[in-house]
């Protein structure tokens, strides 16, 4: 009898294992669906163990890349130097202009008592890993709850917004990029003040959605954060409108956005650890 049972088990063991393991995997999905931001103990323990190795490899590959940049491309250095000097002169000129505008803007902002919207502290963080799958757009940074990073905090770079903190462990955090399918940011077109929602496309672009079709949006327009929702401070650069899709019917128009941040070359980011949410009266 027992031998018969064993032989039945042997015969169907692959099917039995398949049912057990696949059901467990499905139960994992089901149990985590409503807790996207929470990491179980085992998850963050594995994250903490693996991340130092990622950090080491990232530093090594960066070092090798820098070495190649420094020596192999030395031939083009002189030409590049001339071009860069020219660019520096132009940027200085532009910088002076922008500084003047920023001072004026700051004064007006103070007058309007909007200063509370400005984030007070930013924490620099190094990117030590990227999403292992090609599906999702996340990065891993070397700062966690012990450094004051919490779920939902905005992550930016000097070029513009990067994303927000999705999950944290004591020393590391996972950041959902704005290019991810699940990401959305409330935005305005800088020139015309047209409002819309910027959603990730899964690749290195985003889409401006739900902008009323009567609003003035043109290719080349800059898109910035609106500050609504409180996650991102107002006025951070998102990208530039590259294409507009306006059908002859419907309430809204859509636009494709070329992002200001080059995610392929991003190495360091800033986590906004303290923000004052915008309150809509």
């Amino acid at each position: 009898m027992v031998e018969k049972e064993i032989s039945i088990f042997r015969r169907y063991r692959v099917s039995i294992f398949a049912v057990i393991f696949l059901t467990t995997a499905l139960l994992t999905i089901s149990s985590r669906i409503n807790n996207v931001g929470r990491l179980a103990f085992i998850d963050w323990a594995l994250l903490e163990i693996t991340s130092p190795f990622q950090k080491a490899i990232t530093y090594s590959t960066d070092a090798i890349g820098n070495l190649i940049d420094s020596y192999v491309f030395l031939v083009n250095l002189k030409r590049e130097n001339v071009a860069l000097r020219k660019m520096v002169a132009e940027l200085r000129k532009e910088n002076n202009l922008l500084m003047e505008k920023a001072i004026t803007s700051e004064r007006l902002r103070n007058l309007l008592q909007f200063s509370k919207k400005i984030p007070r502290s930013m924490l620099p963080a190094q990117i030590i890993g990227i999403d292992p799958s090609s599906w999702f757009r996340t990065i891993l940074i070397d700062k966690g709850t012990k450094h004051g990073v919490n779920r939902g905090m905005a992550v930016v770079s000097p070029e513009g917004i990067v994303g927000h903190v999705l999950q944290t462990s004591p020393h590391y955090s996972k950041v959902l990029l704005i290019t991810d399918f699940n990401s959305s940011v409330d935005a305005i077109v800088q020139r015309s003040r047209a409002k819309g929602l910027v959603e990730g496309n899964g690749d290195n672009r985003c889409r401006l959605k739900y902008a009323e079709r009567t609003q003035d949006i043109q290719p080349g327009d800059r898109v910035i954060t609106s500050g609504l929702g409180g996650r991102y401070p107002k006025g951070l650069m998102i990208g530039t409108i590259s294409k507009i899709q306006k059908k002859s019917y419907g309430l809204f128009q859509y636009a494709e956005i070329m992002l200001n941040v080059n995610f392929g070359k991003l190495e360091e980011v800033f986590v906004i650890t303290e923000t004052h949410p915008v309150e809509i009266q």
Partner: protein
Amino acid sequence: MKKNLPLVGLIFLSLVVQTTALGAFPHQLTKPDLLLILTVYLGLYSSPLAGAILAFLAGYMMDIFSGSIFGVQTFSKTAIFFLTILIKDRFYVENPLFQAGIIFSFSIIEGFIVISILGMVSPIENLLSPFFLFIIPQSLITGLIGPFFIALIKRVLILSHGESVK
């Protein structure tokens, strides 16, 4: 158990490489899925129980470092492992062309599994666009690298405990 430790190490190492060095892959949107190749290897050469545990672990580790819904990679990797077991006896698995073909096919199937789960769970517009954006390029790259990576896995296992691999 002891003989599977090098495979655990390989899963760990593949994940670290996949989340770091492979990020600099020429086509930034896609990179070869080393853990999928490892899962197919497990399906071809491991016992059903040990292989299933390791495939589950590979997917679980990917889920920890990945965004969005937790468990999607765990499910897809485990499913790919059992699909490999289902077909392995019908082919000559040592042929590198077969290995490239099976990895390419399973990468596409895995893509459909992920799309299906995402479609069921979250409302994403135009779910088929990732097919051309990610699945096809990733499957091609993974399929091309597959036979070489399988040969490397075999070499590492032989070196780790002098065990002859089937």
